[in-house]
């Protein structure tokens, strides 16, 4: 029987919170960035693309360290965050931000592929039929790339569940506060006799990832049927 200690349960729960939080926060931004890249003529598009994809090619530890420099008290946003009493380093928010940044390129890439498949004349037809920009976005663009958005969210969620490097640098490995499943497994593997506990968390991780894939497939099929 798979019995988990309260600390493990907390790691599982935190992982779900971090993955959900980062996915929900990143999705609107990912959608907006993909839209800008696909449908508009923004200047320096290649530069923007490069910046967005950087976390995909950089080691996550490097991403975490850069975020630490950016969001730490000595960073450019430090004074602002101090004024409003905002703390990101070594908090759950830090873990969410780290996951969101690392998974963002995957999210944008998936949505972008979906958007590129949309017939632009359909969007133009909608406009000439009296539909404004937002109306067209909600009634045409979003439904036509719905499956791609869902695929992007799934990738983002899965990437967040497995996020380790950036999280440990930015949010630390504090049990009950920022210790997610990968961080807990890391701790068990470096503790004598922690193998069985690590294995249990691995199993939980597999079940969670598989469940989200199944859910995404089902939702994707429902959208396609519509």
């Amino acid at each position, binding site marked *: 029987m798979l019995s988990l200690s309260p600390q493990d349960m907390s790691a599982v729960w935190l992982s779900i919170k971090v993955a959900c939080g980062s996915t929900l926060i990143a999705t609107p931004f990912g959608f907006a960035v993909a839209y800008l890249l696909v449908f508009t003529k923004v200047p320096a598009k290649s530069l923007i693309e490069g910046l967005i994809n950087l976390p995909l090619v950089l080691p996550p530890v490097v991403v975490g360290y850069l975020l630490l420099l950016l969001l730490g008290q000595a960073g450019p946003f430090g004074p602002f965050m101090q004024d409003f009493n905002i703390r990101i380093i070594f908090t759950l928010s830090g873990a969410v931000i780290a996951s969101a940044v690392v998974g963002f390129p995957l999210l944008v890439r998936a949505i972008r592929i979906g958007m590129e498949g949309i017939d632009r004349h*359909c969007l133009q037809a909608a406009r000439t*039929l*009296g539909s404004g920009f937002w109306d067209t976005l909600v009634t045409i663009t979003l439904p036509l790339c719905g499956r791609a958005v869902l695929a992007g969210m799934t990738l983002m969620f899965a990437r967040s569940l497995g996020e380790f490097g950036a999280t440990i640098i930015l949010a630390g490995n504090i049990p009950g506060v920022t210790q997610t499943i990968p961080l807990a497994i890391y701790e068990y593997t470096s503790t004598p006799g922690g193998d069985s506990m690590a294995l249990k968390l691995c199993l939980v991780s597999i079940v969670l990832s598989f469940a989200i894939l199944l859910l995404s497939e089902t939702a994707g099929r429902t959208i396609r049927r519509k």
Partner: protein
Amino acid sequence: MDLQVDIEKDHGKFHFSAAFSLSSRRCGIFGPSGSGKSTLMHLLAGLLKPDQGTIRLAGQTLFDAAAGLDLAPEKRRIGVVFQHSHLFPHMNVQRNLLYGWRRTAPANRLISPEALIDVLNLRHLLHRGVNRLSGGERQRLALGRTVLACPQLILMDEPLTGLDEELKYQIIPYLKKVFDEFDIPLLFISHSLREMRLMTDEVLVFRDGSLQGSMATEDLARNSMAAGGQGYANLLNLGRPRPAGDLWAYSWGESELILTEQGENEENLFELDARDIVLFKQHPLATSARNLLACRVIKLFGVNNRVGVELLCGDSQLVAQIVPESVRELGIAQGTEVVAVIKASSFRKII
């Protein structure tokens, strides 16, 4: 329609400029590929922004570069039927059809969906997904969707180009019926002279991004008589025929025409190439041709080394095409009585 346009647009290496005003309700934009027809459509619909100039429709300014005015496409009330139908793939026929209607202010809803569904024969398709429609059905739906948005002007960008010949001429009666019944001003873009003649009264001719001139569609057809090896095509609307031996007899004004082809509709459209009409000064006593029509010459017009002879046969008109030598030898002039001889198989059924 009261459309006034004076615009310029640089689109990469392509420079587009046009200044015209239109009052005809059925106007065509004619020109070869790359002449700027589609650019004009995009500029009028607000899908492309002119660099400078003005666009006014029915007293309303849609675009004025100097005043910084550029109405969004959804506010222009200009409907567009694209070359390919571009239906919304995630909606069924009914939702596609009513997309524009639902976004039209109640005061502007001058066309009833029920009436249009019947005219376009779409009722049995309403709950079908658009991916299960044939090419003709898709184009009928695209037209219906645009008409139901009750626009002040409909732009049709080569709506028949993607369809095969047979389908094309199945759609035309629907197009004519819709525009007759609902009386919406039309700007029809095409490079097909025949489509232009079927759908419009007046044409603007474009070449290399600039307006070459405007003329009656009939004049365009006559001017094109000598171009590209084509003759002038007489378009004849004939009613239901009666059998005449192995052939079919159609009443044509006061006269009767004998054709090999049987028209199955109440109205049948036939094409007769002006080059297939042979003119005789006197009645030829023996000929294999089945149609011998006594006509009077009402006008002669020349294009290069061809002469178009406008004939009055009873109360109907025909154009025959001959060469200047024949005109001289036969002494054909305005008022001359001639006999037009046409073979029964020279008529080509279009619709």
